[in-house]
């Protein structure tokens, strides 16, 4: 049976879904790197909107928040590294397009066949009144190990990322004997150190 809320949900999921896939395709079609980055952001925001329609308010806004910041930073790298940031000099930067298209389409076909052939179970429990509380209590209780893993992984990422990205160590900053009073940084920070 099609209740009012399932019909509404179906419409929202279909429209936003088409939007997210279309922006996903646009990422690899447009010439301008800025447009590609923000097409990807559009895809993320559409998915976030679907999550919002699925009562996952916290995960939806966190997705929007994290992905926007990530894409804004990404735009900086796209402009810095790519040869064609504004799409003013169209050029091809692809390899093995046919094989990739076959793999992509094949994955889609296999997944879709599975999705429509499987007899999905019917949910037996209702959506909780406060899904955010459910997630928070899980992360701080029964799923604490996940939270610990995430924390350690993120901390390791911060360290490893900084180490890989920076070319300067303490000997560059404080001299060979580490005796300089003031670090020789290319840009002075705000604390006048």
């Amino acid at each position: 049976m099609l209740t009012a809320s399932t019909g509404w949900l179906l419409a929202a999921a279909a429209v936003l879904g088409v939007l997210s896939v279309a922006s996903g395709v646009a990422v690899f079609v447009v010439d301008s790197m800025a447009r590609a980055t923000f097409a990807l952001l559009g895809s993320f925001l559409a998915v976030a909107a679907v999550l919002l329609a699925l009562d996952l308010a916290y995960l939806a806004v966190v997705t929007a928040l994290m992905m926007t910041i990530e894409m804004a930073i990404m735009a900086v790298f796209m402009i810095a590294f790519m040869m064609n940031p504004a799409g003013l000099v169209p050029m091809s930067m692809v390899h093995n397009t046919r094989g990739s298209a076959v793999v992509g389409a094949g994955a889609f076909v296999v997944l879709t066949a599975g999705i429509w052939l499987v007899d999905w179970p019917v949910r037996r429990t209702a959506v909780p009144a406060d899904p955010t509380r459910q997630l928070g209590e899980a992360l701080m209780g029964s799923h604490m190990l996940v939270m610990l893993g995430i924390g350690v992984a993120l901390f390791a990422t911060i360290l490893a990322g900084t180490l890989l990205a920076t070319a300067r160590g303490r000997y560059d900053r404080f001299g060979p004997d580490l005796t300089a009073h003031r670090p020789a940084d290319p840009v002075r920070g705000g604390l006048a150190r």
Partner: protein
Amino acid sequence: MSAEVVLQVVLTVAAGLVGVGLFGALSQQTVVMVMMGLELVLNGVLLAGGAAWYFLAPGLPDAQVLVVVVLVVMAVEMAMGFAVTIALYRSRQVEMIDMAADLRG
């Protein structure tokens, strides 16, 4: 028609995102664009996780926790990807994955 159809539609969208992302990750030559493809794949996983929670087991937090893990994986992938790109660019002025093929050892 029931909620099952909505679940299947949402999952189909997720499969579409995974397919497009795979195509991009495999066909692009620059590191940054490859990462955008991977992000699209993870975007599909994110959507599928949310749908699994709502339509299959909203009483359990597991699918929500999965979505959180996917978000973290995205952040880690992006941060490490950029760090590697910068290191690669600094050492040999390239940002195309084909030119770093010797890294396979």
